[in-house]
């Protein structure tokens, strides 16, 4: 009998057997790559099917697995929310695993990939288990499996100091977050069955708990803090731009695409499912933090010259957008407007899915570029469109999607988000009526800056002329990688063109949590028109926009090629000058200069110009050297003091260490005597 449950357990069995398999095959690295990654992609596919199935039929079932500690069995539960995230993780896991065959193959001969294969499958398995877990115990174990596995993946190329530093920072922040989550679950379990018994550790008991209002707020914000640390919400984002760039690119795609989303899952699970009843200001706080993350994230992204770092900061922005949707939904839900709440939640979840797809695509594209050029700094790239036409075209699709331009998917979710914003005057609170439109404006600004950021990313990397050396070695990537990127690109397009189908599919989640349904109104005019609330208010049709775009492009192409004259191709970026060298091109730093001038306050900028003169006269400049360092200020504001304080404390405690046995014995002796006196 095939059921979602059997599919997902089979998938987990495959993941765990892959771990053993990779140990067995570690002698033959090629066989390892060609067996491990197809298997993980198959396992992800099974989970994907299970996820689609669960959400489609709105299945809610739970099981008890007799594993774990005595008297504390693991509980797992399938419901539409976990089904949605199973679909998400399964989809990207499937695609990235296909991509990984090509990507990891390149490591063979340079370094052993056994550890990569092991932790890759553990990482995926951990993420699946997180969304399946139905008790705090199993949830935290899965959460830690996921965190530990991804730590080792970030550490994969551990001979470089920056990788070790990034991985350590990631581990520290992940664990601070995990402690907060643990405390929050502890509180919930305590309010469910009392602090003396262990029975409250199941989510089912927590669902029936009643919280005193203040403690509910403490519980929620502890959990939110913990999940925000994982999601990279500003100011807890510092690990993200460190860890994502140094991980292998297939791993960064997974980390950014789906690992951050498990935190979103956690927030939704705790808020809408476990606590259920919340005042409006929780939603407002979530929304404000989301807005801050969205705006600052994209501003920081604009300042990056490292392609993967840029993408990492852009993940901060997108997590912010998702949180805005969730926060808005919480606010609407607390004012009992189910339809609006459902709209905002759907927009948030839709963006979650979209971000997984296009950020997966972009990280895979960055990986392809890295694979071909061995370069992460955009200032050393350029003109790759000639050498890597497939990658360029697919990366461009990712850029368009993330910039929220129709007909791709980013547009749909952000448009839904704005619809939710624009309907907020229906709320009975004047404060919110005043604040929410400002939020909409900030979100619009973030969206515009995102477009600018990806014009930069694509333009500097792929257009113009090659800026570095050894041009001839650059080549297009193999078919596995192209297929991987191609599948995400197709997903981006489909999610952009058929939003009504998607919304109808996932409507059951919002219906279950906030009691509102969109599918009737959203699909009132068939699959072509998306009308979230009513057609008088707003409507969007992906297919028609696509047709229009295709028509215009075809027309332009025909007009260009219908002429008799052959098309003359001149040197690139010549601009009428002659002898333009690649170094004279517009650079990434230069492109983001206006933003640096306007929003300079948010950055820690160190700009230096040095010029050498001939004959020691200012008029005869021999060479100019320009260096620019931009860092985000949060490190100095929040983290540096903590780092300094912990070093100060360790130095002080270090004085206790005299290196003499007698002194150590006196310490224990004094402790014993003291305890005996005090506890007599």
């Amino acid at each position, binding site marked *: 009998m095939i059921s979602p449950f059997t599919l997902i357990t089979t998938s987990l069995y495959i993941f765990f057997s892959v771990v053993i398999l990779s140990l067995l095959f570690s002698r033959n690295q090629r066989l390892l790559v060609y067996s491990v990654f197809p298997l993980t992609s198959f396992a992800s596919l099974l989970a994907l099917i299970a996820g689609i199935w669960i959400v489609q039929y709105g299945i809610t079932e739970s099981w008890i697995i007799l594993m774990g500690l005595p008297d504390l069995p693991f509980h797992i539960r399938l419901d539409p929310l976990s089904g949605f995230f199973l679909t998400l993780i399964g989809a990207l896991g499937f695609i990235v695993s296909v991509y990984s065959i090509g990507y990891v193959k390149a490591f063979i001969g340079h370094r052993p990939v056994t550890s990569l294969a092991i932790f890759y499958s553990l990482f995926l398995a951990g993420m699946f288990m997180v969304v399946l877990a139905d008790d705090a115990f199993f949830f935290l174990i899965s959460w830690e499996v996921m965190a530990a596995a991804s730590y080792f993946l970030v550490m994969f190329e551990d001979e470089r100091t920056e990788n070790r530093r990034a991985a350590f920072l990631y581990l520290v922040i992940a664990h601070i977050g995990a402690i907060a989550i643990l405390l929050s679950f502890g509180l919930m379990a305590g309010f469910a069955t009392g602090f003396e018994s262990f029975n409250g550790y199941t989510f089912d008991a927590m669902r029936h708990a009643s919280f005193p209002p203040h403690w509910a707020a403490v519980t929620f914000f502890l959990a939110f803090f913990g999940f925000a640390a994982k999601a990279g919400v500003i100011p807890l984002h510092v690990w993200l731009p460190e860890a994502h760039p140094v991980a292998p690119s297939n791993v960064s795609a997974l980390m950014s695409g789906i690992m951050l989303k498990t935190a979103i899952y956690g927030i939704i699970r705790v808020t809408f499912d476990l606590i259920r009843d919340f005042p409006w200001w929780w939603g407002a706080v979530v929304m404000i933090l989301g807005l801050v993350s969205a705006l600052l994230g994209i501003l920081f992204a604009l300042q990056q010259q490292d392609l993967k770092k840029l993408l990492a900061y852009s993940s901060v922005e997108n997590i912010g957008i998702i949180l805005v949707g969730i926060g808005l939904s919480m606010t609407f839900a607390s004012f009992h407007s189910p339809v609006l709440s459902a709209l905002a939640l759907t927009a948030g979840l839709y963006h979650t899915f979209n971000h997984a797809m296009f950020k997966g695509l972009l990280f895979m594209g960055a990986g392809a570029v890295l694979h071909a050029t061995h370069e992460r700094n955009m200032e050393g790239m350029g003109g790759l469109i000639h050498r890597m036409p497939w990658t360029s075209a697919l990366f461009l699709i990712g850029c368009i999607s993330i910039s929220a331009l129709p007909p791709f998917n980013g547009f749909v979710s952000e448009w839904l988000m704005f619809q939710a914003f624009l309907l907020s005057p229906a709320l009975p609170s004047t404060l919110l009526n005043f604040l929410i439109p400002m939020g909409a404006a900030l979100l619009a600004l973030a969206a515009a800056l995102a477009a600018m950021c990806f014009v930069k990313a694509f333009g500097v990397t792929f257009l113009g002329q090659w800026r570095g050396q050894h041009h001839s070695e650059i080549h297009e990537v193999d078919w596995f990688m192209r297929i991987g990127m191609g599948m995400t690109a197709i997903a981006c397009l489909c999610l952009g063109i058929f939003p009504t189908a998607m919304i109808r599919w996932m409507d059951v989640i919002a219906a279950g949590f906030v009691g509102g349904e969109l599918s009737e109104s959203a699909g009132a005019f068939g699959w072509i028109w998306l009308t979230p609330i009513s057609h008088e208010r707003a409507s969007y049709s992906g297919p028609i926009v696509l047709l229009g775009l295709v028509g215009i492009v075809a027309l332009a192409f025909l007009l260009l090629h219908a002429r008799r004259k052959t098309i003359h191709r001149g040197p690139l970026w010549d601009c009428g000058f002659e002898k333009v060298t690649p170094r004279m091109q517009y650079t990434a730093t230069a492109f983001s200069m206006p933003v640096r001038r306007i929003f300079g306050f948010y950055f820690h900028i160190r700009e230096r110009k040095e010029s050498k003169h001939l004959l020691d006269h200012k008029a005869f400049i021999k060479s100019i050297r320009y260096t620019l360092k931009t860092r985000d200020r949060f490190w100095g504001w929040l983290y540096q003091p903590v780092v300094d304080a912990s070093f100060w404390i360790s130095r002080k405690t*270090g004085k206790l*260490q*005299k290196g003499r046995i007698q002194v150590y*014995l006196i310490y224990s002796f004094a402790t*014993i005597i003291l305890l005996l006196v005090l506890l*007599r």
Partner: protein
Amino acid sequence: MSVSFAAQLNSVLAALILLTAFGLLAQRRIYGLLHLFAWQGVFLSISTAVVGYVAGQQHLYISSILTLAIKVIVLPYILHILIIRLQIHKEVETVINIPTTMLIGIALVIFSYHLTSPIRELSTLVTRSTISVALATVMLGLLMMITRKHAVTQIIGFLAMENGLFFAATSATYGMPLVVELGVALDILIAAFIFGIFFFHIRTTFESLDVEQMARLKEED
């Protein structure tokens, strides 16, 4: 042998154990330490047997024989061999001078009597009066480890402390279960071997068995 006689005998043995503990604190020569330690083992062994007889606990006889074998014969023998191999003839140096150490030791004994007074009132065992002596022996052993510089004397201090613990177990609860006592005895034996190996390493590294030399291991800042 009546119960009250046994209790008195036990008290005498406890006093002797305490006396040897003070002797360990005061003794300067290393062979003297070794003999005192062996005597402490003898008293402990007899005391255990007496308690076993009074309480009718058969397994205490086994403990008693084990104590005799390990703490009176095997361990002193190992330490003796060590002392010969390592060619230790010198007098033992102390960190604090001996009269001060003795005064601290007396204070500790008074403290442990004060500490165990509620237990003595509540307990019904014949051995209840010796709990404070046992606790004092533990503390004196620790004090000996603190005040001595030489590695071998520290080991003797450690073993004396273990004697105190063993005595405490016998006098407070008529001994631990036999399995635990066997395990502890084995641990002590293995610890002695490990210490022996360590001594050789310490001496080859520092050319001395003075543990003060180990301060050189500390990280410079």
